[in-house]
């Protein structure tokens, strides 16, 4: 277990170092999602009550787009110099490669979301501060689902010929349950009085556990040629 944690930590640190050095992925995703949020706002021009009803759906849809954009290069970058082979040659648990990348993707997505939340609150005239704690919990669970599933499918699609097209095609249908659960949980938080739905939270936790277990079980095969 300590070997697994060590290898995961080393890979996570490498991912963070590489990304924060170039900031290519973070900047691109952030700009893209900002445009989506602003365009949604201008297109619908919602009132406060409409924002509380439709805002969470638009927000999570934007996060989903961010995920499909950000997760694509996760394994594609390893193709450039066949560094995935170097990782697979190392005496480490193959799941630690996936786990390190999942953790990095989770942190990148969470960072983008945290930066976007104030913009969303201003554009949609929603007070997020009173519900910040439970909202962060929903964000963490939903983002974990997106990062876990996205990393798995990024590994699968990176070896396909139409890899750029394949990831969104595979990912978006599979992430529909996360989108629904996260949206419903956020809608509950924006009601008056705010309510944290345990049903949707349990659903999100179950989704995360199922896909993490699946990644652990088939991780070695996912990384093979």
């Amino acid at each position, binding site marked *: 277990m300590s*070997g697994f944690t*060590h*290898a995961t930590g*080393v*890979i996570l640190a*490498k991912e963070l*170092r*590489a990304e924060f*050095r*170039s900031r290519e992925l973070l900047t691109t995703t952030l700009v893209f999602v900002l445009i989506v949020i602003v365009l949604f706002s201008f297109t619908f021009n919602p009132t406060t009550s409409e924002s509380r009803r439709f805002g969470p759906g638009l927000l999570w849809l934007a996060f989903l787009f961010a995920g499909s954009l950000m997760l694509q290069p996760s394994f594609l970058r390893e193709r*450039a*110099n*066949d*560094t995935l*082979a*170097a*990782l*697979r*040659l*190392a*005496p*480490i648990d193959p799941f630690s490669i996936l786990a390190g990348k999942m953790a990095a993707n989770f942190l990148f997505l969470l960072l983008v979301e945290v930066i976007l939340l104030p913009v969303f609150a201003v554009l949609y005239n929603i007070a997020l501060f009173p519900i910040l704690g439970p909202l962060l919990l929903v964000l963490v669970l939903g983002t974990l689902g997106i990062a876990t599933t996205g990393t798995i499918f990024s590994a699968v699609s990176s070896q396909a010929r139409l890899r750029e097209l394949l990831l969104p095609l595979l990912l978006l249908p599979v992430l529909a349950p996360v989108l629904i659960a996260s949206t419903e949980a956020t809608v509950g938080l924006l009601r008056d009085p705010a309510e944290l739905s345990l049903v949707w939270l349990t659903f999100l936790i179950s989704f995360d556990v199922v896909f993490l277990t699946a990644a652990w079980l088939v991780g070695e095969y996912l990384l*093979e*040629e």
Partner: protein
Amino acid sequence: MPWSVVARNNCCAIWFRAEPPRVSTAPAYFSNSGPSSGQGSGLKIQFTNVEKRYGMRMALRNVSLEITPGECVALVGHNGSGKTTLLKIAAQLSRPSGGKIIFSERGAELSPDAVKSRIGMVGHHTLVYDELTAEENLIFFAKLYSLPDPSASARKALDPVGLSKRAGDLVRTFSRGMRQRMGIARALLASPGLLLLDEPAAGLDPEGQQWLGDTLVKLHRSGCTIVMSTHGRNETQASVTRAIRLESGKITHDSGRGGDPSGVLVMASVRDTDEEISRSERG
């Protein structure tokens, strides 16, 4: 840890160590001290009826082959003959469709997990990250191999490949030859008992080929088992003790253990040249 245990685990780098390696296992494969006889040993590999299928295409057909510790084997053959596939299977990057491979060291069979820490590979690509510096790359891999002092290991590995002065530079700024040297430094970082090289001379200028050839000679002298795929005659073949020709996934010629590899190497070179000439005439 007793010296003998460390020596068994790091056999490739033993002969140049001045101190008992309780701390560092970094490759110092350039040394003036020469090999310590009887201590260094490579891995033994035994392929038995190994097959590999990609869909309907057979990449390897019933390959049975035994490579003994310390051999330096050149795999020759034209493109698509199965050289890379055989190397990938040996590196455990690809599963065979049939047959089995056994790795052993000093008579004891190694588990698949134990084998991984004893294999170094130089591939078609450099297997290093462009967006990291040379030193960061090697520290990263040293940590993955759980080497005791990753920073010291990285510095020691950069020195013999002549990249110490560029340790802090991003790999993307390196020339092709320097990248290839980085790839070799990465492969030798954990002092492997088996070194696999897939056309290591590709893209290297004559000076780079000479350097690589010298490096392989020193590694071979240290007792490391070396298996490399190669095209034509070049400087990297100076250390070759055995040559095997593959055609359509089958072994057609094997100079054998202790045999003279030059016949197979020359034949491969002549055939490759003939093929190139006929291709250019057709084209």
